[in-house]
């Protein structure tokens, strides 16, 4: 007989409901305007989603996130793979990355804004930086773990260095790269929001930060819920993609959020 916990999606659903109930009870007990009950926030979700202007704001943020995310993948995966297979490349990039890694990317926003203006480019750059580093790191680790004997065998059979990187290192490192991409996806979502904190023309920040400024806390929490659900859905979709392209390997790290 199938246990109730084995039903796909049931445990995360229960966790979400439990969290919402706990939030609602605590908010009603504390009765402070800065923490509305969960039900009040949930009631605002359809209000946001039914407003075409707010939908355009959300789509505008997603557009920047997608551009920043894929631009980061195009840059970070080759760099990570090269670092994993070349000591010289690793020696060049490692100190640079170790210096940039701990810097909160949103903190760079005011400086980037001064260089690139207040438009989309500066926001996309912040997302790009946020996503690039974990993808580089995981691609690097994946490339380093490739067995040297396989590469020697390929070289002995006449395969050139670029072909070895593309046909041996890349597929072998794919499970680890996917972990980096998954982390990058979450960071893309975070930096998507934080990049709009200072200046924006359109975006989810219009809903979130304006509501915060005006103490419209129901809208603030509703927006946070929408962003949270977006993260959940993206994670589930990404897990499906991972299964499709690297299903032959078990996930290197069990960090499943949306996977049931």
């Amino acid at each position, binding site marked *: 007989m199938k246990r109730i916990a084995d039903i796909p999606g049931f445990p995360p659903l229960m966790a979400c409901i439990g969290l919402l109930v706990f939030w609602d009870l605590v908010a009603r007990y504390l009765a*402070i*305007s*800065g923490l509305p009950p969960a039900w009040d926030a949930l009631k605002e979700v359809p209000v946001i989603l039914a407003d075409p202007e707010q939908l355009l704001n959300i789509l505008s943020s997603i557009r920047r996130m997608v551009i920043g995310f894929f631009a980061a993948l195009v840059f970070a995966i080759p760099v990570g793979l090269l670092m994993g297979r070349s000591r010289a490349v690793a020696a060049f990039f490692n100190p640079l990355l170790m210096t940039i890694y701990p810097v909160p990317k949103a903190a760079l926003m*005011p400086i980037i*804004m*001064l260089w690139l*203006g*207040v*438009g989309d480019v500066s926001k996309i750059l912040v997302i790009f930086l946020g996503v690039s580093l974990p993808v580089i790191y995981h691609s690097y680790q994946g490339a380093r773990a490739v067995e040297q004997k396989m590469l020697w065998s390929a070289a002995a059979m006449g395969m050139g260095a670029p072909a070895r990187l593309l046909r041996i290192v890349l597929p072998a490192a794919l499970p680890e790269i996917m972990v980096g991409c998954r982390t990058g996806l979450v960071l893309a979502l975070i930096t998507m929001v934080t990049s709009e*904190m*200072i*200046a*924006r*023309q359109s975006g989810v920040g*219009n*809903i979130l*930060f*304006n*509501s*915060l*400024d*005006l*103490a*419209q806390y129901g*809208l603030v929490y509703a927006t946070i819920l929408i962003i949270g659900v977006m993260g959940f859905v993206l994670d589930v979709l990404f897990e499906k993609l991972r299964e499709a392209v690297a299903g032959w390997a078990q996930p290197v790290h069990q960090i499943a959020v949306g996977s049931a």
Partner: protein
Amino acid sequence: MKHVSLALAAASVLLAIDSAQAQETIRVGWTIPAEESKYWMMRRPQEFPDLGKKYKIEWSQFQGTSPMAQALAAGALDCATQGVLPIGQGMVNNSYQVYVVAQHVGERPGSFSVYWAVKDDSPIKTVADLKGKTVGISVIGGGTQGPFDLMLKKNGVDPSKDIKLVEVGFSLSEDALRSGRVDAVNMNQPFAARAEAKGGVRKLFALSEAVPNIVHIVEACRKDFVDKNPELVKAYVRDLTLGMKKATSNRAETLKVVNEVLKAPVEVLDTYLLKPNDFAREPGAAPNFAGIQAMFDTYAETGLLGKKLDASTLKHPTIVAPME
């Protein structure tokens, strides 16, 4: 050779068109709340004959006036909403030079004035009673601190030693006061109206008691931009003037416009917007240069500005609201 010449000619034409288009667009920074003339321009552009036809505006929303000062200094914006203090700091540091071309909101006798509130049952009855207490302010080192420091000094309280000053954003003021995290806190609209309606808090003192006719936010444009594009800025200032007229003459529509921008319910806005308990709007958005001068003097006196400044240098000879 003929092809190269043709290509060069085409490129020159394209560059000229691009340059002309660039000149027609003005990059403007804005924030919330209290910029009704801009909100009208954003939401009812059809009411402004030149907007979108003779010139365009590229709007960018900012989280407060300080980042807009940075953006102006970096040349990322041409015009933006500014407080008097950042303008003064820009003049002292020589980081950016602006003309004040219009005014959004300020104070005048009888209008709303930012005030510090305490709980009804608080033992704090006078400004002198603030000694040893925790006091909230929206931004430490921000525009309201000069008049606040002056008020404390007038009443024998040293703002740097006698109180514990903490930063509490306007939206969190009421909660901070009621929960006892602060003993006194500054209040602004619409939060003041909401707190007053709920009761249990009382006004201790208002900024107008320290400095009358305070200027809160103005429209500032980079001097180099104005000097280079006078006609473009004139068109913009004409529309700011028109926007202010529309905002103040048609309150019902202004409530709708502000609701569209702020997403705050009309019922909330209706408690204060363009009522006697709101800030003052100057007719035709005319900047109050005497008020700006008084604030420069206050900031210099309280140490927020390193030297005395002359507000008349902010006035362009011809490009200033009201402009018809």
